[in-house]
C-alpha cells in the first residue's frame, strides 16, 4: 500500500490528483505494446513495479552500470538472467534464484543488500509475479524509471541559462529606486522600495512607534541591553532633527555593539570552546576568536577584510595577530579524536569547514554535493571537491594511521605574542633555568661526596635513578656534617620550588596552518566515501557562477602554505561575486527586522525561500560595497528609515491581506534572545559586570545538570561571583554541557552553523523563570535595589516597572502591584521584603520584559 502511494507520487509529483494520474497511466499503457483486448496487468503495475522501482532498479537497470549483469527493466532481460545464470524459473517458480536472493537464504544470498530484507508482502508479490508467468508493462516501467532518475523533483539542478538566472546567481546591479507618492517614505531608498510594494497591494505602513518603543528597540538591536530610564527621557526630550541619529551613533560607537553583533556571527560559525565526543576537550584559547569577532565588529572592519582574515588570515601579505586569530574559524568544529575511520574523519573535518564556509559566507548548502550532485541546486558533484581543494592542504588533527606522523596535533597553535613579550619570556626562562642549573651543580657536589662512599653493589643499584636517590637520602645524614646537611636540604627545597614554577604562557591562537607549500591532489570521492577516489580536480569556484578557474601558483619552496585559501578569499570578496554582499546584507536586515529579506539566510539556493524584496536586497548589497563594506554605515541607513520606526501593532486590513507581514507593513515583535534575557536580568539588578574580553567564565550550574556528565565533578568550572555576572557572550561554551538558562531560551546549537534561532515557548522556560536559583537570587537583588532607590512601596513598584520596561508605569499597573504585595502580606503573612522579592520575580516574568515591540 505504502510503496504504492509513493510510486504514484514519484511519477507525477504532487501536481496531479490521483484520478488524473490513473488516466495518465492508462493512456500510456494504451499506447504501449499491450494489445488492446488485454487489460494492463494490475498485479504488475500495482504491486510488483513499485517493489522493483524502489529496491532493484537502481543497480539493475536505472544506471548505466548494471550490477551482476542483471537487468530487470524488461521481461526479456529478466528471462535472460545475469552473470550467475537465470534468475527466474517459470516451470518451478518457487525455485527461482531471484526468490532465494530476496528471501535472504544465507549471507551470500541477500538482495537487496544493505537496506534490509524486503517486506513479506513484497516478496509475496514477486513470487506471485513469477507464478503468473512474469507479465511486464514496459512502458510503465520506463516511466517509473525516468521519474526516479530525475529524482521526482521539480528542481532543475543542471547548469543552464535558466538556473544561471536564479536570483542569487545573477550579478548584483544597483536597482532603480522607485519614486513613491509619500514624501515621508521617499527620502530613504529603503522606505521607497517598501512603500512601493505596500502601495501596490493597497496597504499602508504602520505609523511610527513611540519614541520609548523605538529607543528600546534600537538599544536591544545594537547592544543587546535596554536603555536606562534617563536615556529614554533624554531622547524623548530631544526635539532636534538629529535625535534619532544621535542615538544610533552613540550605540554604534559603544563597545557593547560588538558583543551583540559578534554573537550573531558566532552562531554562524558554530563557535564552541570544546571538541565534542567522548572527552569533549577544550580547544586551546578558543576565546581569542570570540574576542577577535567582537573587536572586528567594534572597529567596523570592512566586511571583505573580515571574510579574508577568517579564510586566509595566515596567507595574506599583511597578516596580523588578528588575522591569525581569525583563521581559528576553521578550527571551531566538532572533532572526534578517536575516529572509527581516519580517512573518512579527515574528510569530515574538511567538510565541516567547507560546509560552514558555504553557508556562512556564500549562503549555499555546498555540503549537499558531497556524496552526489546537489539534488536541488545546479552544483555538480565535482564542484564540492573543487571547493574542497582550496582547503586540501590544511591539517585537521587526525592522529591515526597515515596521519599519525602529521607534525601537528590538536593543540597546534600559533604564538601570537609580540617580539617584546617573547623576549621577556625568553629572559625569564633563561633566568629560571640558570638558577636551577646553579643549584643542581651545588647539590651534585654534595652527592658526589656521598656516591664516592657507595659499595660496588650499591654503585650497580645506583644506576637506577630512583634507587640512587633513595641511597643518597639514606646516607646523607651520616656523611654530611650538620651545616652541610642543612645547606643540602635547603637547596633541595629551593630546587623543588623552582621546578614547580611555571612561566606565564605566551599568548597563542587556535589557528590555521598548512602542511607546507605543496597541496595534495584532490579527488572527487564517489558517494562521499574517502576510500572511493574518482577523478582528480583542481581548485575551482561553483561553475554556475561562471567565473574562470583560478590560476593556482606553483608551490614556492620554503613557503608555509599553498596560498590556495587566499585565492578563495579574493574571489569571495570580489565585488562581482553575486553572493557575498547579498548574504551579509540580508543578515544585517534579518537582525534588525526579525527576518531576512530572504527568509533562509544561509540558503540562497533553489530550495531556499525567495526574497520578498529582491530589489531592496540588491540595493542594500550595493550600498554596502559602495561604502567600503562598512556594516556600521549599513546599520545606520537601515535604522534611519521610516520602516525601522514603524509600530508593531496590527491593522485589521493588513492582517487579513498579509498576515505574515511579507510586505513589511509593520515592525514584527520579537522575543529577546537567550543572552539578552540573562543580561537584562543582571542589568536590572545592577549586578551586570561589563568587563570585556579574555577567557570565558562559568556561571553556577545546578547539580542536576552536572550529573548528566560522565565526569560530573570535572564537567564545569567555577568563576568568582563578579565574574559569574559578566555578559552571556563570555560564558564558556562546552559542546556536551550547555549553560542551562541560555539553552532553555534557544541558544544556537553548537555542532553546525545556525543562521536563524528558534523561538520556542514551552512550560520548562516558565519553570526556570519562576523557580530557578538564578532567577530567585536576581529577584532578591532587584528587590534590594529598588528598596534602596525608593522609599514607599508604591514608589518601589513604580521603579521596578520603570526599570524593566523603559517606560513610565500606568497607575493601574502600580495598583496591581500594590494589590499583590498586600495580598501576600495580609493573607499569607509574608514579610514586606519577601513580598517585594516575589513582585520583582513577577516583573522578570512579564511578557513585556522579554518581548520587544
Amino acid at each position, binding site marked *: 500500500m505504502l510503496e504504492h502511494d509513493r510510486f504514484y507520487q514519484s511519477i507525477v509529483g504532487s501536481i496531479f490528483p490521483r484520478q488524473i494520474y490513473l488516466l495518465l497511466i492508462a493512456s500510456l499503457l494504451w499506447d504501449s505494446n499491450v494489445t488492446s483486448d488485454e487489460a494492463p496487468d494490475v498485479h504488475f503495475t500495482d504491486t510488483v513495479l513499485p517493489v522493483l522501482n524502489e529496491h532493484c532498479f537502481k543497480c539493475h537497470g536505472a544506471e548505466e552500470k548494471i550490477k551482476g549483469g542483471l537487468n530487470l527493466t524488461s521481461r526479456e532481460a529478466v528471462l535472460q538472467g545475469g552473470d550467475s545464470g537465470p534468475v527466474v524459473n517459470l516451470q518451478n517458480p518457487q525455485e527461482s534464484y531471484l526468490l532465494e536472493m530476496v528471501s535472504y537464504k544465507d549471507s551470500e544470498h541477500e538482495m537487496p543488500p544493505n537496506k534490509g530484507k524486503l517486506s513479506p508482502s513484497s516478496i509475496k508479490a514477486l513470487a506471485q509475479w513469477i507464478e503468473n508467468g512474469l507479465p511486464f508493462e514496459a512502458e510503465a516501467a520506463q516511466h517509473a524509471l525516468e521519474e526516479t532518475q530525475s529524482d521526482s523533483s521539480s528542481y532543475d539542478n543542471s547548469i543552464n541559462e535558466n538556473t544561471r538566472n536564479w536570483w542569487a546567481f545573477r550579478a548584483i546591479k544597483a536597482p532603480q529606486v522607485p519614486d513613491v507618492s509619500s514624501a515621508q517614505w521617499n527620502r530613504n531608498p529603503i522606505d521607497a522600495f517598501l512603500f512601493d510594494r505596500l502601495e501596490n497591494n493597497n496597504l499602508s505602513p504602520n505609523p511610527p512607534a513611540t519614541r520609548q518603543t523605538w529607543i528600546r528597540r534600537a538599544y536591544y538591536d545594537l547592544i543587546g541591553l535596554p536603555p536606562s530610564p534617563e536615556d529614554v527621557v533624554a531622547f524623548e526630550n530631544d526635539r532636534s532633527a538629529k535625535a534619532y541619529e544621535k542615538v544610533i551613533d552613540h550605540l554604534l560607537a559603544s563597545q557593547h555593539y560588538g558583543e551583540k553583533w559578534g554573537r550573531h556571527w558566532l552562531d554562524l560559525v558554530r563557535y564552541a570552546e570544546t571538541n565534542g565526543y567522548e572527552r569533549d576537550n577544550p580547544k586551546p584559547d578558543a576565546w581569542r576568536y570570540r574576542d577577535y569577532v567582537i573587536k572586528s565588529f567594534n572597529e567596523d572592519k570592512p566586511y571583505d577584510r573580515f571574510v579574508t582574515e577568517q579564510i586566509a588570515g595566515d596567507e595574506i601579505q599583511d597578516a596580523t595577530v588578528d588575522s591569525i586569530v581569525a583563521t581559528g574559524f576553521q578550527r571551531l568544529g566538532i572533532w*572526534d579524536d578517536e575516529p572509527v575511520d581516519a580517512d573518512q574523519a579527515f574528510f569530515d573535518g574538511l567538510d565541516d569547514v567547507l560546509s560552514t564556509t558555504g553557508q556562512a559566507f556564500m549562503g549555499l548548502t555546498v555540503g549537499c554535493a558531497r556524496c552526489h550532485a546537489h539534488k536541488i541546486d545546479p552544483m555538480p558533484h565535482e564542484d564540492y571537491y573543487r571547493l574542497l581543494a582550496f582547503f586540501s592542504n590544511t591539517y585537521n588533527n587526525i592522529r591515526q594511521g597515515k596521519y599519525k606522523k602529521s607534525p601537528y596535533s590538536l593543540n597546534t597553535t600559533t604564538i601570537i605574542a609580540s617580539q617584546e613579550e617573547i623576549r621577556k619570556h625568553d629572559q625569564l626562562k633563561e633566568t629560571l633555568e640558570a638558577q636551577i642549573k646553579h643549584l643542581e651543580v651545588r647539590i651534585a657536589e654534595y652527592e658526589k661526596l656521598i656516591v664516592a662512599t657507595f659499595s660496588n653493589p650499591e654503585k650497580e643499584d645506583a644506576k637506577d635513578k630512583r634507587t640512587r636517590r633513595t641511597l643518597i637520602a639514606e646516607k646523607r645524614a651520616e656523611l654530611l656534617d650538620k651545616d652541610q646537611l642543612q645547606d643540602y636540604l635547603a637547596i633541595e627545597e629551593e630546587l623543588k620550588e623552582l621546578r614547580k614554577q611555571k612561566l606565564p604562557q605566551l599568548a597563542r591562537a587556535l589557528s590555521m596552518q598548512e602542511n607546507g607549500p605543496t597541496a595534495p591532489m584532490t579527488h572527487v570521492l564517489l558517494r562521499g566515501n574517502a576510500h572511493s577516489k574518482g577523478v582528480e580536480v583542481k581548485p575551482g569556484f561553483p561553475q554556475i557562477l561562471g567565473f574562470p578557474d583560478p590560476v593556482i601558483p606553483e608551490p614556492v619552496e620554503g613557503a608555509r602554505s599553498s596560498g590556495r585559501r587566499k585565492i578563495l578569499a579574493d574571489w569571495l570578496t570580489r565585488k562581482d561575486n553575486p553572493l557575498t554582499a547579498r548574504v551579509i546584507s540580508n543578515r544585517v536586515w534579518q537582525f534588525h527586522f526579525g*527576518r531576512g529579506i530572504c527568509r533562509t539566510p544561509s540558503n540562497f539556493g533553489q*530550495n531556499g525561500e525567495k526574497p520578498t524584496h529582491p530589489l531592496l536586497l540588491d540595493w542594500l548589497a550595493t550600498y554596502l560595497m559602495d561604502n567600503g563594506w562598512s556594516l556600521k554605515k549599513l546599520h545606520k541607513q537601515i535604522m534611519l528609515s521610516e520602516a525601522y520606526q514603524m509600530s508593531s501593532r496590527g491593522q485589521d486590513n493588513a492582517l*487579513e491581506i498579509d498576515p505574515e507581514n511579507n510586505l513589511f507593513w509593520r515592525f514584527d*515583535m520579537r522575543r529577546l534572545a537567550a543572552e539578552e534575557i540573562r543580561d537584562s536580568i543582571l542589568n536590572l539588578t545592577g549586578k551586570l559586570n561589563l568587563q570585556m574580553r579574555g577567557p570565558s567564565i562559568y556561571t553556577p550550574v545546578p547539580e542536576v545538570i552536572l550529573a548528566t556528565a560522565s565526569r560530573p565533578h570535572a564537567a564545569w568550572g567555577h568563576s568568582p561571583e563578579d565574574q559569574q555576572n559578566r555578559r552571556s557572550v563570555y560564558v564558556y561554551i562546552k559542546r556536551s554541557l550547555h549553560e542551562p538558562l541560555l539553552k532553555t531560551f534557544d541558544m544556537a546549537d553548537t555542532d553546525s552553523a545556525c543562521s536563524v534561532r528558534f523561538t520556542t515557548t514551552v512550560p520548562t522556560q516558565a519553570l526556570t523563570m519562576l523557580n530557578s536559583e538564578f532567577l530567585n537570587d536576581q529577584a532578591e537583588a532587584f528587590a534590594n535595589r529598588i528598596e534602596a532607590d525608593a522609599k514607599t512601596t508604591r514608589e518601589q513598584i513604580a521603579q521596578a516597572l520603570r526599570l524593566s520596561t523603559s517606560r513610565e508605569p500606568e497607575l493601574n499597573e502600580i495598583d496591581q502591584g500594590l494589590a499583590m504585595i498586600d495580598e501576600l502580606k495580609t493573607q499569607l503573612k509574608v514579610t514586606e521584603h519577601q513580598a517585594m522579592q516575589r513582585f520583582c520575580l513577577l516583573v522578570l516574568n512579564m*511578557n513585556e520584559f522579554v*518581548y520587544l515591540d
Partner: protein
Amino acid sequence: MKNQSYRSNPGGGFCRRTRREFLHNIGGGFTSLALTGMLAKDGFLSQQTLASDGETEWMSPMKPKAPHFLPKAKNVIFLFMYGGPSHVDTFDYKPDLYPLDGKTIDVKTFGRGGHKNQGRVVGPKWGFKQYGQSGKYVSDLFPNVGEHVDDIAFIHSMTAESPIHGSAMLMMNSGQILSGRPSMGSWVNYGLGTGNQNLPGYVVMLDQSGGPISGAKNWTSGYMPASYQGTVFRPKGTPILDLKNARNMSANEQQVLLKHLSHFNHGHLSERVDNSNLAARIASYELAYKMQSSAPEAVDVEGEADHIKTMYGIDHDRTEDFGKKCLLARRLVERGVRFIQIYSGGAHNDQNWDAHGDLKKNHDWHAGNTDKPIAGLLKDLKQRGMLDETLVIWGGEFGRQPTAEYAQGTGRDHNAYGFTMWMAGGGIKGGVSVGETDELGSQAVTNRFQVKHLHSTVLNLMGMNPMDLTYFYAGLDQRLVGVEGAQPIHQIMT
C-alpha cells in the same frame, strides 16, 4: 507494512509549529512549495487565519499528532545498557566458545585496541539455560529476564558503524556517528507529540554514577528546536530541574504571583491580540503550574502496592535504584509520556558495562542490578495489558569481542561487528530470534542489521513511515534513518 489507514503524506506533514514560529524559525528554510503543501495538509493555513484573531488556541509543539498509519506501539521504554554488554555472555549462546577458552585463534576484531587478526578466546563466563515455550537459551546473568523470553524478540545480528563509545553512543541514539543530530526520542516526539502536556514527552533517567560520555548529546534535539530534547528525570527528590522553587516559595504564594502575572500579561496582550506568541507564553505558565503537581505525582511510587515494588526489586539494595526507574517508566507510560530512556551504567570504565578488565565482576554487577527490575517491568506491563502498546528495547551501543583484550584477564574489547539487542511489547513477535553471529560471536553473519534498521523498526511500530519522517535542515530532508533509509526488521514484527 500493513497500513490500511495510511495517510498519503510525502515529505512529512509533521511540521505543525505555529505559523509564526514556523516562519521565524526556519533554520535551513523550507521551500515555498513544501511550505504551502505542508501547511495546507495540516489544515494549518485555514486555522491560522483564525489564529490571527488571537482567539484560536495556541498549538503546543508537543500536542499529540496523528501517525502515518495505525501504530502498534504508542510508547517506548529504551533500557540502554551503556558501555556495551557482551552478547556471548548474555543472550547469544555460543556453546563452541567454551572449549576454546584460553586458546589463541585467528579472528578479525576491531575495538578500542584497533584492528586485530588474532586473539586469546575468553570462554563465556556463565552457563546458559533454556527458558519458556520457545526454549530460548539465556545466560545465568539474566534468570529473571529469561522467564519472559516468549515475549521477547532477539536480534542477534546487530552491527554498528563504530566500536568507539563516543561515536557509537551517538549512532545508537541519533543514527549517525557525527555529533549534532537529533536523538530518536526527539524524532518520535517531533513526529507524534506526546500524550500528556503536563509532563515532558521525552524522559531520560541516568545512572547514579553519572551520565554517559557526551552527556546531553545523547538526548539532544540537535538541529531541531529544544522543545524536542529529552528531559532528565530523577527518581528521588524533585524529578525535574526547577520544578520546585529555589527560595521555598509556597504554593499559595506562587498562585498569588501567577494570578497577578496573568493580569499584567493580559493587559499587555490586549493591545497586541494578533500576536499568538504572547498568548502562548501565557498558556505556558499554566502548563508549568500543572507540571509542578503532575511530575511529583508521577514519581511518587509510595502508593504502589508492596508486591509491585517487590516485583521490580525495589526491596533490595542492589536492584532498588534501577527497579524504581523501571517502575517510574511504567507510571510515565500510564500518564502518556511518549519516550523514556533509562541508562544502566554511567560515567567511565566499570561504572558501566564496559568490561575491559574483569568481565565476571563487571557483568555480575550490572546484570545483577538490572535483571530483576527489567523482568518486573515486563511482567507488570503485561499484567496491566500495557505491554501490547509499549515497546521495550534492551541493548547497548555495541557488544563485546569473543577474545581477550589484554594478555591477562577476562576483559573483552568493544565489538560493533555483531551484537545482540532485544525488543518486547507493542508490535513485537515474542519468542523469536533473528540473525546470527558466527560460532564465536565475533561478527554477524546472517540477516545483518544496522542501527538504522532498528530505528526504522521503532518508527514503524509507532505508526510512522521512516522515509516520511523528515526534517528540513541544511538543504536536505533529514531523516533518523539517513538519506538512503532502511526497512524495518519485519521478522520480529507481528
